[in-house]
C-alpha cells in the first residue's frame, strides 16, 4: 500500500474545504469572504453565534473565524458551545475583535478554545496565510483519517487470514486407513481438499518414483532423469 503523499498533494487529495466566518457586520462578512475565497474553498457566513452553531451541524469546517462582539451569544460563549461538542472539540477557532487587546480578554479567548487572535483592521495577507495553514492542516487530517480507515480494513483481512492459518496448524483428525481428514464441521474429506479449503495452496497431478514403479514397472522415467542430470 502506498501511504506516502507529498505536501503539495494534500489540498488536491482532500475534498473542497469550508471555512466559517461569524460576524454581525455585513461589511466585515463581505470583506472576509472576498479575502479568503478560493476555487478550492467554500466560505460560509453566519451573522450570529446561534447561526454559526446551526451551520456547524450541517457542515464539516476546517476553521472558524469568530468575532467576539456578537448580539445574543457572544464569541466566547459560541466557542464554548462549539468546544462542548465531541465532533467539534478540535475545530480550530480564530477570534477576531476590533478592541479587547487587554490580556484578560486574550486569555479568556484562549481558554474558550481559540488557536489565534486577530485584531481589526485585518491585515489581509496575514489573515490569508493563517487560514491557509489551518486549511492545510485540516486537509492533512482528512487524508490521514482516510488512510487510517484503509489500514484498518486491511488489518481486518489480515486477521481473518491469520485465523485461517491457525485452523491449519490445529489438531486435525486423520483416518489411519484412507488418510481422509475431518474438518471443523465434522465432514470427512481428502487431505488435498482440506488443505485447498484452508489455504491458498493448489495441488497438481504427479507420480512419485515408487508409485511409478508399481504402476509402470518397465518404465524408468525418474532414474533416467537423474542420470541425465549427472
Amino acid at each position, binding site marked *: 500500500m502506498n501511504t506516502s503523499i507529498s505536501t503539495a498533494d494534500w489540498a488536491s487529495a482532500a475534498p473542497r474545504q469550508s471555512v466559517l466566518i461569524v460576524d*454581525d457586520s455585513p*461589511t466585515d462578512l*463581505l470583506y472576509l469572504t472576498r479575502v479568503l475565497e478560493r476555487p478550492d474553498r467554500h466560505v460560509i457566513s453566519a451573522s450570529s453565534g446561534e447561526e454559526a452553531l446551526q451551520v456547524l451541524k450541517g457542515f464539516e469546517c476546517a476553521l472558524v473565524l469568530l468575532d467576539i462582539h456578537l448580539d445574543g451569544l457572544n464569541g466566547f460563549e459560541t466557542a464554548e458551545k462549539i468546544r462542548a461538542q465531541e465532533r467539534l472539540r478540535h475545530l480550530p477557532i480564530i477570534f477576531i475583535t*476590533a478592541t479587547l487587546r487587554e490580556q484578560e480578554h486574550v486569555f479568556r479567548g484562549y481558554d474558550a478554545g481559540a488557536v489565534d487572535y486577530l485584531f481589526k483592521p485585518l491585515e*489581509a495577507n496575514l489573515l490569508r496565510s493563517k487560514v491557509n495553514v489551518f486549511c492545510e492542516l485540516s486537509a492533512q487530517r482528512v487524508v490521514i483519517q482516510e488512510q487510517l480507515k484503509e489500514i484498518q480494513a486491511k488489518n481486518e483481512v489480515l486477521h481473518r487470514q491469520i485465523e485461517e492459518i491457525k485452523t491449519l496448524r490445529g489438531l486435525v483428525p486423520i483416518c489411519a486407513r484412507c488418510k481422509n481428514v475431518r474438518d471443523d464441521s465434522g465432514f470427512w474429506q481428502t487431505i488435498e481438499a482440506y488443505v485447498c479449503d484452508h489455504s491458498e495452496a493448489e495441488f497438481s497431478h504427479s507420480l512419485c518414483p515408487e508409485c511409478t514403479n508399481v504402476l509402470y514397472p518397465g518404465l524408468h522415467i525418474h532414474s533416467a532423469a537423474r542420470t541425465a542430470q549427472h
Partner: protein
Amino acid sequence: MADPIDINWLRKTFDDDSVLVELYTMYVGDTTKRLAELHAALDAQSATQCSRTAHALKGSSGNIGAGAMRELAARLEKHDWTADPAAGAALVQALDSEFARVRDFVDQFTATAPVAK
C-alpha cells in the same frame, strides 16, 4: 483635506476595483443603519448601546480603509457619557458629517469604477 477612504488600503488586497465598489456599497448601506441605531441609542440615552454600535462601526470602517470614521467611532466607543454627554453628542454629529463625505466619495468612485461581476 485627506480623502475619507484610503483606496490603497483595499487595493493592497484586491487588484480588481469592482471588489472595492462592492465593499464600499455594502459599507454605505451598513453604516446608514448603524448611524440610525446610534441616534436611537442617543435618544434613549443608552451609553451601552452607543458603545456597542460605535464598536461595530470602528471595525467595519477600519476594514475598508475609512480612517476618520474609524477614529471617531473609536473615541465614541470609549466615551464617558456621565462625565461629558455633550461631547458624546458632538462625536455622533461628527460621525454623521464624516459619513456624508464617505457617501459622496463612494458615489464618485462607483460612477467611474468597473461594475462588480
